């Protein structure tokens, strides 16, 4: 327990995290890639076509993991933002800001793949259904956080302001998630349950879960990569960055 706390304390120090993330990054990319390959194999080859939607349901394997990740990334960002605001931990600021672009990317994919799926199943690219609308609002929230972060000159102040915005915007998350329950709409209700039975056949389910795993791992890879860059920029005056320079330069040349 004590060594665990100690580990987190050490992890909070930028140079340590830089090295820690650097060590894990290749592994995360590799795991994500392998899991995605397995998942996509299952999604495209082993899963049977849906009896109602035919092969168009295979969009699910992109749409649903990305939708989950869009929400997860926001939660991760807001949680780190909270830590950054309350305890002023620099690493949390960077982690929060690093999760915004990838979260926006996942949300964007969700929106587009949802549209692509909606055309054959609902007959329209877009309707102003509550879930679709709140997902669009989520994308705008991500843009707002990113925009605010880049609009302020002082990096740490910018991170804190953007984290604050992220915290305000968190009211949107339950709306996205529960919109299918609160409002009776076109969008599919909850079909996958982690606890209890899912309303989906196992042969269809395992590729989905594998892909969800892959996107989670990729999320952390992306966040780690961006955090490393942000830490380099943020700590450019520090000795540990200086110590890094000649070596990395040599390896690049």
């Amino acid at each position, binding site marked *: 327990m004590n060594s665990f706390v100690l580990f987190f304390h050490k992890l909070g120090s930028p140079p340590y995290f830089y090295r820690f993330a650097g060590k894990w990054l290749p592994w995360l*990319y590799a795991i994500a890639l392998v899991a995605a390959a397995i998942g*996509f194999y299952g999604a*495209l080859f082993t899963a049977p*076509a849906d009896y109602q939607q*035919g*092969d*168009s349901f*295979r*969009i699910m394997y*992109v*749409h649903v993991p*990305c939708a989950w990740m869009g929400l997860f990334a926001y939660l991760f960002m807001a949680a780190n933002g909270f830590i950054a605001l309350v305890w002023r931990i620099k690493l949390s600021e960077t982690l929060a800001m690093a999760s915004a*672009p*990838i979260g926006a*990317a996942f949300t*964007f*994919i969700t929106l*587009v*793949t949802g549209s*692509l*799926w909606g*055309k*054959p199943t609902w007959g329209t690219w877009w309707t102003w259904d509550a879930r679709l609308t709140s997902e669009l609002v989520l994308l705008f929230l991500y843009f707002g956080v990113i925009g605010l972060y880049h609009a302020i000159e002082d990096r740490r102040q910018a991170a804190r302001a953007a984290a604050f915005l992220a915290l305000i915007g968190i009211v949107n998350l339950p709306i996205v998630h529960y919109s299918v329950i609160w409002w009776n709409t076109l969008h599919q209700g909850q079909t996958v349950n982690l606890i209890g039975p899912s309303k989906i056949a196992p042969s269809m389910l395992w590729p989905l879960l594998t892909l969800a795993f892959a996107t989670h791992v*990729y999320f952390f*890879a*992306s966040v780690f*990569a*961006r955090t*490393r*860059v942000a830490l*380099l*920029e943020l700590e*450019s005056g520090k000795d540990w*960055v*200086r110590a890094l*320079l*000649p070596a*990395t*330069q040599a390896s*690049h040349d």
Partner: protein
Amino acid sequence: MTDFFAMHGYAAYVWPAYALFAIVLLADAIAPALARRRILRELTGRLRRAASRKTP
């Protein structure tokens, strides 16, 4: 095989979705690597300038 690519008529919806997924995440993976290279180049340049300014 062509059957597989045709997706029973849903090819125009399924493949763009998968392609988008691949392209967006690829771009997301490349962006930090590029930014890292740019920053390292800037920092070394700045250090070199600072060093050259001290010598004369």
